[in-house]
Structure formats: structure tokens, C-alpha cells
């Protein structure tokens, strides 16, 4: 096993009855990185995290942390700490006692304990809150206490189980950035699970997209967004438009797809073995669509649509158009370049085929 990785797993399987919640997952997290596991609820990401923390045992496969096999190590002996979904701050203890809990278990002397508690509180930006009751703190402060409680132990690996879920939107945005900074500052390896793609994208060095117990793609956020490896990733990460049809030709890695109303659209081939006659899906991002009321440029692909309505949302404003019963969303730039649109009016949407991805149709 690669010893330079803080965490490495191979062929992990965890079954509940006939259903494999974690299905042959292998992963490798280099030291000091922020690794996210992104997936919809029920995809097995919580199960995977519990396997790593030791609250559950894999049916197959191995877990190595810094090269040491962890399968038989009980949770209290693993060099792994976890920030729980609901934080799990001990309600019967003060903030200081919460943070000191792990140190006490390690038999760190009281004076040393006090020093380290004060220092870590300083580091997470909550100086001198040792004697407060965790219930008195705000959501963001509690978050930081939960983090401090783990970081004070200087773990090899910090697991975070959707810890931002309970916060309101504004605070969540703020904590995302803060978590990223804290991870850099402490240099600890973070494994973060979430169903919120924005959390994963903003904070991570690497993101694994998980579905039905398997990893669909492991890549840095930008690659995930620009070059999704599977239709699921294309649909799950970021907004996307999906057009289904039949492949008519493939040339220079660009496939032409005929939609059910006869229109032909083009995009870059993203899955192997795409041949004329095959069912396919073309994915194109809302911001890649441009309004070409004038003649379309030479290499671009285009589609005739009818405007349904416009959705104003500041920088994220969109127009909802339809083509042959299929809804399409396109970004409406708010810098005055967007055309005036009227409901039921005609609208031609065009795009650079290099920005669109064509997948063989997944059996739904």
C-alpha cells in the first residue's frame, strides 16, 4: 500500500442484507489534502465514513491509515477524529471540558490540557470561551468547538459528516471558506462528506462523486465540472441541460445527435463506444448557451426553442425555454447583453460543441 497516503482503502464492501451500501470502493487520500465525498442521500457516504471511523466493520476490503491496517482497530484506538452531523457536543460539559475530553483520555496532565485547550480555541477564533455552556453558543461557534475538540488531538485524519447542514444559508457560506482556511492552517487531512455540491466544490482538493455505493468519478472540482465522466456526474454536479436522441455521426470526437423532432445537435463524445444509431444524451451547461438571434457562428451547434418564462435571480438569472416538450435553461447575463425576451417568442440557442458532452444513454 502507498505509505505516502494518509488514508487508503481498497475494495471496501459493506452489505446490509442484499443491498451493498458500500460497493467495492477504493480511495487514496494524500496527506494534507481536503477530500470530499459527494452524493445524494442514501448513496452510502455515511456508511463509508462510519467504516473509516470504526463504528462499523467492512465485509470486504481493507482500510489503511498511514500504512497501518485499521480493520480490527476499535474506534477509540484509531488516529481518526470525527465532526458529527449534529456536532455531538456533550451537553453536560463546558466548552473547555468538551475540548479536553480527548486529552483527558490520553492522560495529558491538567496544566498541559488547559494550555492546549486555550491555544486551540484561539486558533479557531473563540478565545476565552472555555467556561461557557455549549448550548449558549451560536451555531457557527458550536461548529468551531466541535472542530477544535478534534483538532486539539492532532489526528492524522479528520472526518466531517455534513457538519454544515444545520446552519442557515449565510452562515454556511461563511463557514465553507473558514473550514478551508482552517484545514490549510492545521495541515490536517480532511475527509468531508456532503450532499451539497457547492460545499464540496468550494472546499475540496479532490471530490469523489458517489452513487449507489460506488464512486462515479474522483477528480478535482474543476475537472468534475468541465469533464464529467458519467451522465450522473454531469447531472448532479452543477446545473445542466439534457437532450436525448439518436447518434447520427461521430467525427473528430464530436457526435451529432438527432432529437425526436428531427433537429440535430452536436457535442464532444464523453463515453467510449458511441456509434451511429446508438441512443445518446447530450449535456450542455446553462452558461454555455448563447442567444444567437443573428446567424449562428460557423462551428457551433444550435437549437430552435420557444421562450416559456424568464426567472430573475440576480447573477443566476435564467430563461426557461422549450424545444419539443423538453425544458432548457440558459443563463441570462445581467450586464445588458441579454436580448429582450417575450413569452412564447422564438429563441435560438447555440453553443460550442466542445462545451457539450455526449454520453451513451444510461438505461434508466
Amino acid at each position, binding site marked *: 500500500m502507498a505509505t505516502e497516503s494518509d488514508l487508503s482503502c481498497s475494495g471496501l464492501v459493506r452489505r446490509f442484507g442484499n443491498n451493498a451500501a458500500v460497493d467495492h470502493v477504493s480511495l487514496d487520500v494524500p496527506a494534507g489534502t481536503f477530500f470530499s465525498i459527494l452524493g445524494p442521500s442514501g448513496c452510502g457516504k455515511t456508511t463509508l465514513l462510519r467504516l473509516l*471511523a*470504526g*463504528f462499523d466493520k467492512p465485509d470486504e476490503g481493507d482500510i489503511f491509515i498511514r500504512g497501518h491496517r485499521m480493520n480490527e482497530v*476499535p*474506534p*477509540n*484506538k484509531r488516529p*481518526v*477524529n*470525527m465532526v*458529527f*452531523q*449534529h456536532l*455531538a457536543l*456533550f*451537553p*453536560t*460539559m463546558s466548552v473547555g471540558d468538551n475540548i479536553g*475530553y*480527548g486529552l483527558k*483520555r*490520553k492522560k495529558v496532565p491538567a496544566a498541559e490540557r488547559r494550555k492546549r485547550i486555550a491555544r486551540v480555541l484561539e486558533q479557531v477564533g473563540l478565545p476565552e470561551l472555555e467556561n461557557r455552556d455549549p448550548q449558549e453558543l451560536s451555531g457557527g461557534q458550536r461548529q468551531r468547538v466541535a472542530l477544535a*475538540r*478534534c483538532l486539539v*488531538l492532532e489526528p492524522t485524519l479528520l472526518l466531517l459528516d455534513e457538519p454544515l447542514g444545520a446552519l442557515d444559508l449565510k452562515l454556511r457560506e461563511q463557514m465553507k471558506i473558514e473550514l478551508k482556511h482552517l484545514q490549510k492552517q492545521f495541515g490536517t487531512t480532511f475527509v468531508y462528506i456532503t450532499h451539497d455540491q457547492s460545499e464540496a466544490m468550494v472546499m475540496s482538493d479532490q471530490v469523489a462523486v458517489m452513487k449507489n455505493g460506488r464512486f462515479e468519478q474522483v477528480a478535482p472540482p474543476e475537472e468534475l465540472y468541465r469533464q464529467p465522466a458519467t451522465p450522473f456526474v454531469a447531472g448532479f454536479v452543477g446545473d445542466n441541460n439534457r437532450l436525448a436522441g439518436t447518434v447520427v455521426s461521430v467525427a473528430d470526437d464530436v457526435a451529432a445527435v438527432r432529437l425526436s423532432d428531427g433537429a440535430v445537435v452536436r457535442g464532444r463524445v464523453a463515453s467510449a463506444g458511441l456509434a451511429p444509431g446508438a441512443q445518446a444524451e447530450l449535456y450542455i451547461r446553462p452558461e454555455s448557451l448563447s442567444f444567437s438571434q443573428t446567424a449562428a457562428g460557423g462551428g457551433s451547434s444550435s437549437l430552435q426553442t420557444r421562450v416559456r418564462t424568464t426567472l430573475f435571480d440576480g447573477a443566476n438569472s435564467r430563461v426557461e425555454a422549450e424545444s419539443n416538450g423538453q425544458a432548457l435553461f440558459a443563463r441570462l447575463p445581467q450586464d445588458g447583453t441579454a436580448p429582450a425576451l417575450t413569452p412564447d417568442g422564438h429563441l435560438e440557442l447555440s453553443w460550442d460543441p466542445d462545451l457539450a458532452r455526449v454520453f451513451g444513454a444510461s438505461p434508466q
Partner: protein
Amino acid sequence: MIRSVPRSRLFDALYLSYLLAFFLYLALPLLVTAVFAFNDSPFPSLPWQGFTLDWYLADGTDGRTGLFHDDGLLSALWVSTKIAFWVTLVSVGLGCVNAVLFERVEFRGKELLYLLMLLPLVIPGVILGVSILVFYSGMANDVSRLWGIELDLFRPGLTLVVMGQVTFITTLATLVIAARLRKFDRQLEEAALNLGATPLVAWFTVTLPWLLPSILGAAAMAFLMSFENFNTTVMLTGSDTPLTVALFNRLREGSTPVLNAVALFLMLVSALLALFTLRQKS
């Protein structure tokens, strides 16, 4: 009916007077009992003869014996305290184990056992006393008749009273502690393990402190219930009469203000215990 639905003035006035009448009904018997503990008259009734502490302090020289010089009542008080102590200890201990059993462990037949656990609540107290008397005292009789061995433990007396009261107070203690344990977030225990505690240490440093208020509350409740119980106790008591039974016997002979004095004393002790429990909860 609710605050946001308008009500008529008449309705409000009627409702308020009903409330007032209700609380008067609640308070009156206790209030008069308390007041007559200080009436300078040999009978707990009007007319008011002036204030006295005789019913607590008199030492019997002028025909009055106050509570603190009444050996019969004082020893009964001591008997009740001993019973309540043991009942509290046993039923709260059982309650803790039962709460863990029903809230944290999965096993076959759990539903049935839970219903069995609730059973003592729907058995009249007299019957609980009678059945224990019939079984244990009957057994002691049979053993004595057949083999000449005296099982005095199972003759009516302190042990049987404690057993009888434990029967139903355990159910109540279990319900109180289990309700608190149900609200415990299991993640807290996992967090403790994650921070390096062994399961046993996690239990003592995280779970038990969480349960403590309910354990103390259950203990206060068990103590009071035991102290005040009559129906089960009266069937099982032997030569050492507990306070409620002693008071009952006195009352049948005729009421004196000493009884009021005892009653007020009991109310004060109960109130203190109740306050203590409430402070624990908040």
C-alpha cells in the same frame, strides 16, 4: 378557545371563576390541615383558640403530647424512612437497568416484556399487597408446618413492605429514566469513542451524567411514593408500623391536632423534596 380566537367577556369571566373555584378546592383541605396544627384546642375544629406550638413541642406534662415527644409516631416515622430508603435504592437501581434494557438493547419478545413491565400500573395497590402476602407469607407458613423452619423474612414486616412497594415503584422509576434515555443522542457516545474513550468510560462520562437528573428525580419520586403509600403497605406490615398506617390507626381512635402537626410536617418534607427535584430538572 385559543388565544387567537376571540372570546366573549362573559365566557372569560366564567372561565376565570371556574379556575379560582378549582384551585380553592385543591388548596382548602391542605390549608385547614396546616392551620389547625397550631390551634390551641384539643380538637382540630373551630373555634380558633389561639396560636400554639404544643402539638409539636409539648412533652406530655399537661395532658398534651406533641409530635416530637410522641414515641409511637416518631418510631413510625423512622420505620417509614427505613422502608423508603430501601425502596428507593432497589427501585431506582432496577429502573436504571430496565431503562437500558428497553431503550438500548434489541431482543426477541421485547414488546411482550415491555407490557409486563407496565403491568403493575394496572393492578390495584391492594391486590399487589395481597398477592405478595399470599405467596410469601403462605410459603413461610408451609415451610414452617412441613419442615419446622421459620422464614421470618417472609412474614409480614419490613421486608415484605419493601417488596410490595418495589413492585409498582420500579415501573414508575423505569418510565422516568427510560424517557430521559430515549432523548439521549447516541452520537454523543460515538463521539466519546471517537475521542478515545472506551465504551465503559463513555458510559460513565457521557451517558450517566445525562441520565443523572432523571435518576435523582426518580429517586425523589420513589421516596415520596413509598413514604405515602398505604394500600399496599397496610396488607404487608408487621409489628413495626410505618407512619401512614400509624396515622390511620390514630385517626380511627379520633382526631387530635397532633395528626395535623404530622400532616404539615409531611407536607413540608414533600415540598422540599419536590423543590429539589424541580431544581435538578431546570
